[in-house]
């Protein structure tokens, strides 16, 4: 474990001074450790665990840079290694959550996505069959020129049906009137 206790001393005036120069990479180590601890707590909360990857990667980068600096200057590396380990574990937890979310999303798409597609197709077919006999009007307007296309594919059939129905009604009415 990192020795936190040996870096300070007091001069005769009572002022605290650094005993020796601050080890290289120490600031990065502190930053990495704090970021890693926060990332770890975030990673374990499922609501925000997915975004914990970002601070996790930042902590890993900080710790790695600090470690390289510390190894160059032969400085203590306890805080840096602690920060790196915690950051790696936190990032792995966060990645596992991304995997879980991805899998659930895929499963949802597989199980329900197909059904939803079938329902949409059914609705589309129903709408098509309902609108088969309807009037279709397309208007195109460009530079003051207007083009209007009206189509009515099954109008004749409908008219014939209506006429037949009307005739049938008239016949029945006539019979009633005669009876009266």
């Amino acid at each position: 474990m990192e020795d936190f206790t040996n870096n300070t001393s007091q001069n005769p005036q009572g002022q605290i001074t650094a005993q020796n120069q601050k080890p290289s990479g120490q600031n990065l180590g502190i930053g990495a450790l704090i970021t890693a601890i926060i990332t770890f707590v975030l990673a374990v909360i499922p609501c925000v665990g997915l975004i914990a990857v970002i601070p996790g990667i930042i902590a890993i980068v900080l710790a790695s840079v600090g470690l390289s600096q510390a190894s160059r200057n032969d400085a203590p590396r306890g805080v840096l290694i602690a920060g790196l380990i915690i950051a790696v574990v936190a990032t792995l937890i966060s990645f596992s959550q991304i995997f879980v979310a991805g899998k659930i999303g895929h499963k949802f798409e597989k199980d329900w996505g197909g059904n939803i597609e079938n329902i949409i197709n059914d609705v589309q077919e129903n709408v098509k069959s309902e609108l088969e006999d309807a009037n279709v009007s397309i208007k195109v307007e460009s530079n003051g020129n207007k083009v209007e296309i009206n189509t009515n594919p099954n109008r004749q059939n409908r008219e014939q049906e209506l006429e037949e129905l009307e005739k049938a009604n008239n016949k029945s009415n006539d019979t009633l009137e005669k009876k009266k």
Partner: protein
Amino acid sequence: MRSWKRLTISLMTLWKRRSKSDSNLTARFRNEPYLLINSVLAGVIILIFIYSGFFSPVNDSYPVACIHEKLTGEPCVSCGLSHSFSLIVRGRISEAYEWNIYGLRVFLFFALQLVMRAAFSIFYLKYADTRKQLVTYDIASSIVLFLICFMPYIEWIVTQFAQLTQA
């Protein structure tokens, strides 16, 4: 005139002493990472409490939404945690329990951590001989507390992962 002179001299000495003690404190923080880490973590916890107090549970306008629910459409075990924290800060514990069953546990973790950061920092400054042991106790107790308070969430993550890898 003499009294003015005396007053100025005493103020000057006071200022010097204060600046000296300030520089002592700055040097101490700079050279002792443990105190710096403790103070930063305490600051983060205070920010969490401010966040909980700032956003009202009535308005329900929390900026942090559940990303898991947004992606998968299924609520997760920590949904309603912000709401729960806001209610705990306002003293409505039973309502907080309804929003998230584990909200109180997690809130207690943060509250205890805040107390621990302050207490361990004071002990660290007071008892210089036992600093190494103190840091060891701090790490051990924090890990145990974390596992106790976050166990339901950890279990949920592990279960989800295991179920999906088997399927």
